[in-house]
């Protein structure tokens, strides 16, 4: 079994165009959430979102293309045989939205694998890739799949790219579900009332150690465990007993061959919805017992970036491992009683060598990754 090194990262979010800007914004307590101007929010439950500044589609293609243009400009040189795994929830649904309104749009961007295939061609990669879609856990499940392919030897170089752009389709849907917070979301806070949507893209280049050494690539961290599970309870609501997330975390721990005591911090999904946050806190208490592992979420700064969330949050977690501390949770000033001792507005030192990262989503999906810092 090969180890899985992360040898490159890139990210475009509401906080900037690269991982340094992202990390700098998060640790300084900056939020990318602001008044949403891309479309009229009249009649919706919220008027705020975390949009990438200045993002515009140059033509009838999906806005995702503009997002990926910015991301591609930051990618390191890639070996042509790199396998591309894309992750998205709704891909080019903004084009479908425009078609339904009789506006010019590029229908080729709409089929699920289309944007990933176009990205592969743009990057000059020769190995046919695939697109993972698993709701809000798409990014972390794609990373787990990429790691599995490296570990088994089925691939030696994998680029995982998570992306989603904010569209009225998505915004209206979460509004209809009464899931949007009127103001910026407040993950794990006693006064939380829903999520805030965002957009972004992130890329992580995974490689086997042998391949990385041969190409002179320095690792920034490792993916040492992964797991996923379905609640099998409800298609939109989380399981209140956290069964799926607990199963996913335990699968990741088993895969990594480590104990809960080795986990020094948790990058939580932290949407800011009442039930999802409680479900997560219950899962962490079940897995970690009375040990107060520092838990943080970044959606108070970045919004919920859907299919990009897992990739963006992994990029941040690797930086946290390098720095030796986890950031505070922006938007959480009065932690829910269930979060007491775990979630804070301030940064906290890591209590162990690994970070657990979790995401959950519609369809009952749950995903967990275990990350370790730069290999010595």
């Amino acid at each position, binding site marked *: 079994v090969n180890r899985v090194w992360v040898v490159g990262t890139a990210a475009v979010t509401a906080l900037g165009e690269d991982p340094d800007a992202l990390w700098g914004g998060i640790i300084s307590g900056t939020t990318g959430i602001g008044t949403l101007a891309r479309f*009229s929010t*009249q*009649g919706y439950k919220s008027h705020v979102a975390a949009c990438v500044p200045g993002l515009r589609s140059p033509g009838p293609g999906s806005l995702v293309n503009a997002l990926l243009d910015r991301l591609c400009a930051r990618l390191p040189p890639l070996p042509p*045989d790199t396998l591309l795994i894309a992750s998205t*929830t709704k891909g080019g*649904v903004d084009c*479908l*939205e425009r*078609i339904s*309104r009789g506006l010019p749009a590029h*229908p*080729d961007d*709409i*089929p*699920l*694998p*289309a944007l*990933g295939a176009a990205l592969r061609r743009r990057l000059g990669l*020769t*190995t*046919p*890739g*695939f*697109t*993972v*879609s*698993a709701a809000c856990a798409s990014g972390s*499940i794609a990373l787990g*799949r990429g790691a*599995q*392919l490296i570990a*088994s*030897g*089925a*691939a030696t170089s994998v680029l995982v790219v998570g992306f989603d752009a904010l569209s*009225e*389709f998505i915004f*209206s*849907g979460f*509004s*209809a*579900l*009464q899931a949007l917070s009127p103001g910026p979301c407040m993950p794990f806070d006693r006064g939380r009332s829903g999520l805030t949507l965002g957009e972004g893209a992130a890329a992580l280049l995974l490689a086997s150690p042998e391949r990385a050494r041969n190409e002179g690539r320095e690792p920034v961290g490792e993916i040492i465990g992964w797991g*996923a*599970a*379905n*609640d*099998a*309870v*409800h*298609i*939109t609501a989380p399981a209140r007993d956290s*069964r799926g997330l607990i*199963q996913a975390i335990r699968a990741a721990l088993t*895969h990594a061959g480590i104990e809960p005591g080795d986990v020094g911090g948790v990058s939580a999904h932290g949407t800011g919805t009442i039930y999802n946050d409680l479900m997560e806190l219950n899962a962490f208490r079940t897995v970690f017992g009375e040990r107060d592992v520092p838990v943080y979420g970044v959606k108070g700064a970045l919004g919920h970036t859907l299919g990009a969330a897992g990739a963006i949050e992994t990029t941040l977690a690797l930086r946290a491992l390098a720095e030796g501390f986890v950031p505070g949770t922006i938007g959480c000033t009065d932690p829910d009683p269930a979060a007491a001792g775990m979630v804070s507005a301030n940064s906290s030192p890591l209590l162990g060598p690994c970070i657990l990262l979790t995401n959950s989503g*519609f*369809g*009952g*999906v749950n*995903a967990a990754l275990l990350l370790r810092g730069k290999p010595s």
Partner: protein
Amino acid sequence: VKIFVTGAGWVGAAGMGVGRGPAAFSLPPGFLPPISRQDVFPEPDSRFGRLDAFSRLALAGVALALRDAGIETWTQPRAAAIAASTAYGCTGTDLDYLATLGQAPGLASPQLFAYTLPNVFLGEAAIRFGLTGPTLIVSDEEGTGAAALDTALDYIAAGGDVALAGICDLVRPAQLPEHAAPPPGALFFVLERRPTFEPLGELTAPGVRHGEPGDTEGLRALAQRLCTGNRTAPTSTTRKGRS
């Protein structure tokens, strides 16, 4: 790792079929007939009629495959994975949802929105059949379902007992261009580490070495190889038993 193909089910323009049925696999081009609950489940099912067309089609394929493998019914949840490929996914549902949004922002349908993610039918299958393993859409560029099959094989190779791999697409919406996708329909396979019944065939994992051409078998090709018709349903005389 040796992995057994223990069930197959499909729904297409030519009707429904299973691996151990009298008819050979067929997923021809054409229009899909509407799928009613009675076509799939003998007993009442309060959820099926409320599902969108994409979820109904996919759930029917999953049900037939599990039934063919003899593991449709359950009493305890099972950590079985489902990996499925789709090109157009729930685009028809997306258009229905957009029609409600077009009336007025406040009239957008939350019920329809819940089915505008292509993976949601996997949640329906998980609930209906007690499947608690990983569930994901994994759509390859060529539309063969090879990446879904590979994902399911790797799940078992890594220690899982049961996984399903499938492809599912409705008739292409007129608004979309032709994309690499098989003819409309659903095709699902059940893969097991330890078969209860005489299997349809065997596979090995890992199945694909990425970057090396020529070794990827898609799901339609697998069905054409294994589902040749004139097979009988599993009975006690063909039962191999778990070791």
